[in-house]
């Protein structure tokens, strides 16, 4: 695959690399949360596995609406689409599906542990808690699930006691997470961990 490259003559440089074809590629210091994460995720310890992380080739947050040029795995299809299509699923051997999911699970474990290592203090301080994303995630999950069940009043009525407790715990924990209380099995998480795009 040939990545699209935009060359720039702007002055502040952090690093200069070359692509395979000899084109110079200028890297700007990366500032958005997503691009910080991608930068750190190209660490050797996370690259030894069969899971690839897209490379950010260019980022200009000052351009109108921002410009980011990232590696595109052009000839790939996301797994969420494959498993939702009987036709595509039939083309995929079960053994391959199993080994792929094992790789993904293993990668996630490595990511969770890597993100909590003492050496990653810099990464954690750059991302921070990412309160806006904590709130968004909460809003579309624990903030909405009881409302959805209002469409199923029998189910809601039978279970409302427990459901309210689940919701309450999630709300309290959201506040805890924002206020820097830490517990076991907490740390930097992927935050959008599913098989789709």
């Amino acid at each position, binding site marked *: 695959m040939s990545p699209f490259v935009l060359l720039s003559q702007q002055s502040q440089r952090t690093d200069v690399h070359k692509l395979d074809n000899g084109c110079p590629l200028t890297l700007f210091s990366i500032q958005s*949360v997503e691009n910080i994460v991608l930068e750190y995720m190209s660490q050797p310890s996370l690259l030894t596995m069969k899971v690839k992380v897209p490379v950010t080739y260019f980022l200009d947050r000052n351009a109108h609406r921002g410009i980011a040029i990232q590696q595109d795995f052009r000839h790939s299809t996301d797994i969420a689409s494959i*498993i939702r299509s009987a036709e595509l699923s039939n083309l995929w051997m079960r053994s391959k599906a199993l080994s792929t999911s094992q790789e993904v699970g293993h990668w996630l474990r490595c990511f969770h542990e890597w993100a909590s290592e003492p050496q990653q203090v810099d990464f954690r301080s750059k991302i921070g808690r990412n309160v806006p994303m904590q709130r968004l*995630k909460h809003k579309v999950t624990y903030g909405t699930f009881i409302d959805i069940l209002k469409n199923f009043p029998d189910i809601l009525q039978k279970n409302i006691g*427990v459901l309210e407790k*689940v919701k309450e715990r999630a709300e309290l924990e959201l506040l805890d*997470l924002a206020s820097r209380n830490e517990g076991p*099995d907490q740390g930097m998480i992927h935050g959008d961990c599913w*098989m789709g795009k």
Partner: protein
Amino acid sequence: MCQFGHRAYDLGHMIGDLYEAYHFHSSDIALTMIRGFMDGYGEINDDMAFRTAIHAGVQFLGWYNRRAPSDSVKGTGEQISSAAKISTNLIVNGWERKRQWYQSTPLAPLFQSGA
């Protein structure tokens, strides 16, 4: 979406999404992938397992809203009511820590120790 949070959210999101694919698209491969994903992640303690089950249920139930505002809810009548029921059961049994209940569900791999 990278953030500070509970690791069970990552596990539950993945499993909830796979369960949704299994439920609405009869994807057996999705079931296989739940097992493979947990194999790959490795052993987790009961707290993590129950939290993951709860989050998987919440994620699955969120299917109801994952559509364009003008689209109708995805699924046949039967699929819709059973999705609501199953996802609620995942949440409630997770809160009540009913380990045994999960053994006959696609979430059984959450509660199995490594061989």
